[in-house]
């Protein structure tokens, strides 16, 4: 199954370009994290936080490829740190949302009956909450900072995957391999997580790729309005500070940050679509 999917995916040139772009962003994120940790461990101000008022508002040029911001900090260095934050948000919120969604989806689909009723009630309650406002309310209650973002996005976005997995598990439950496993007397947990789960893995992978850009977009939004990241160079904060400067003609910070957000989100969206086509052959009839 995975080999076939890879062959289908590699024939799609656009998807391969996106995969390359995602790999590039991943490298930047890892580099950014290493730089951040290095400066933290040695307890020095990292270069992307150093202010130099004489160098403020330099347009893009030889030393500063993407110019400098209001405090004379290099835009490119901050942009790369922004990739790190975006990745952290994308990955950690997935680590919260996907296990919750998969667990509830599996038990609801497999056991049915009362368990199913409970899970359906739980996710319809969560689905009824007004999305962004609910995330904002959680972030407000937990407190400003990354933790609030992780919990806000993570605890609200498990509903979609829970529904998908529940539907898939219901389909698989009636199949012969599951009946065979039950006839052999295997435990329910083993059947769900060792036998059924690998067969619905593609749903999880596609969901991850498609919810990643959504989480990044939400983080940018939260940091922009001041509820999210506080003192690290997040894209949302950069857009917020660049917004006013734009009106005075300092176009570079705004342009490069929005371009970075656009490329990252676009690459993940297109890759997710291509993955879905490659992994779920029923869709391309």
């Amino acid at each position, binding site marked *: 199954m995975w080999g076939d999917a890879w062959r289908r995916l590699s024939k799609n040139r656009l998807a391969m370009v996106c995969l390359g772009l995602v790999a590039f962003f991943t490298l930047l994120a890892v580099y950014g994290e290493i730089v951040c940790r290095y400066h933290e461990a040695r307890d020095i101000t990292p270069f992307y936080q150093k202010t130099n008022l004489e160098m403020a508002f330099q347009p893009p040029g030889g030393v500063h490829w993407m110019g400098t911001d209001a405090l004379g900090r290099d835009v490119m260095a901050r942009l790369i740190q922004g990739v790190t934050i975006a990745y952290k948000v994308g990955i950690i919120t997935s680590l919260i949302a996907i296990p919750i969604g998969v667990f509830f989806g599996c038990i609801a689909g497999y056991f049915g009956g009362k368990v199913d009723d409970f899970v359906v*009630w*739980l996710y*319809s*309650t*969560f*689905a*009824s*909450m*007004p999305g*962004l*406002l*609910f995330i*904002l*309310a*959680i972030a*407000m*209650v*937990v407190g400003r900072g990354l933790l609030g973002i992780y919990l806000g996005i993570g605890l609200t976005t498990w509903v979609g995957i829970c529904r998908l997995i529940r539907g898939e598990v219901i389909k698989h439950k009636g199949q012969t391999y599951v009946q065979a496993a039950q006839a052999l007397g295997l435990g329910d947990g083993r059947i769900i997580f060792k036998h059924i789960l690998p067969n619905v893995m593609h749903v999880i992978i596609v969901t991850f790729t498609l919810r990643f*850009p959504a989480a990044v*977009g939400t983080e*940018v*939004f939260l940091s*922009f*309005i*001041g*509820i999210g990241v506080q003192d690290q160079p997040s894209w*949302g904060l950069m*857009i917020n500070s660049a*917004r006013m400067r*734009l*009106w005075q003609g300092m176009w570079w910070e*705004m342009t490069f940050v*929005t371009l970075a*957000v*656009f490329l990252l*989100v*676009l690459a993940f*969206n*297109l890759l997710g*679509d291509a993955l879905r086509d490659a992994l779920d052959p029923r869709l391309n*009839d």
Partner: protein
Amino acid sequence: MLKYILKRVVQMVPTVIGVVLLTFILFNVVGGDLAAIALGKKVSLQSLETFDEERGLNKPLFFGTRSTTRAYEDQDLSENAGRWSGWSNAVYSSETASVAIKPNATIDPLAFSLDPQDEFEWKIAYRGSGTLAGRELASEGWKTETVRFRGAEAGGFVAGPDGIEIKKLKLRKVVKNPFDSQLWFYVKQLARGDMGYSEGLKQPVSKLLKDGVLPSLSLTIPIFFIGVVVSVSLSLICAFFRDTFIDRFLVMVSVALMSINYLVYIVAGQYFLAYRQGLFPVWGYESARYLILPVIIGVVSGLGANIRFYRTVMLDEMYKDYVRTAFAKGVAKPRVLFVHVLKNAMIPIITNVVMLIPFLYTGSLLLESFFGIPGLGYLSINALLSSDVDVIRAIVLIGAILFVICNLLTDICYALVDPRVKLK
């Protein structure tokens, strides 16, 4: 039909209960000290207590016979002296994790006078002698005792001739009715239709909501209708020219539109169209002209996702047998598409459209605050930034309940259009 509607209404009840519970858990249980979030840390304990009292936050969460009061907050003496460092006639020792009150000294540890109607309880672990709230305490070794007193009595210490040492001290309010909890208070408040009181704006939340609805709707309703018409038409074009350059181009454009951050639409639209070109006013809410730009931005930002969704719906229909039949008997392509397919695709389209209605109410968070439209989105953003808990809770709750109601309406419409639904 009536039976089906009744059944669906009954099924709605658990979700409404779930929504109320979820907002309760988020704000009252997870939220912890709401008074400190709303008022900040630099206010007196008395005003925090008043805030709690007004919102029933000084009651037990679900059930209980005792509740805490801010008059004396629990202090773990094994960690530090806390408030006890403020009195000169009490000496804190970290070795024995206790406080010694000097002989014959008087100390009143209550931060403010208690409600004279209520009954309170001190739990104390002590040694030495003295009185607490008028009761005699005397013991050679460590002893734990409970002292009940009324709020009208003096609650403080008078140390005996040898002084008194305290290891543990807790103050609890005695709750008369154990079911009189925060949850019950919240449910009662909602049943009255009382949405709370905004601490930041000094107005009842229901009035703020009433004032904000119209500006919000004047922005979201045009966005809603124009958005649906434009994206359904474009998705029909996609379906008509399926697998040609036009279709692929529109799909690419919609993915690109989806990937542009919402913020960018607003910042760029405001900068280029309003500020540089001067086509529209930049900020304000005075006439219909002020709404044109936000409406355009709202429509464009939603276009990508909508085209993709409606296109999938149309293409799903295109593979059905009745379409093949229509083509086989020689019906022209435009007629198949606009009459046969569109009619059948209406069901998922209507579902999607009705589910957008709750969001009309909550307004557009960013558009409103960027363009100065005094609607509910603007209200929510300001409430978030000033931690106005009651406002946020009310908007979240109403949004959720509207969602549940719209869900019910879609199901009823569904059953009206498609009789098979009732059988399931």
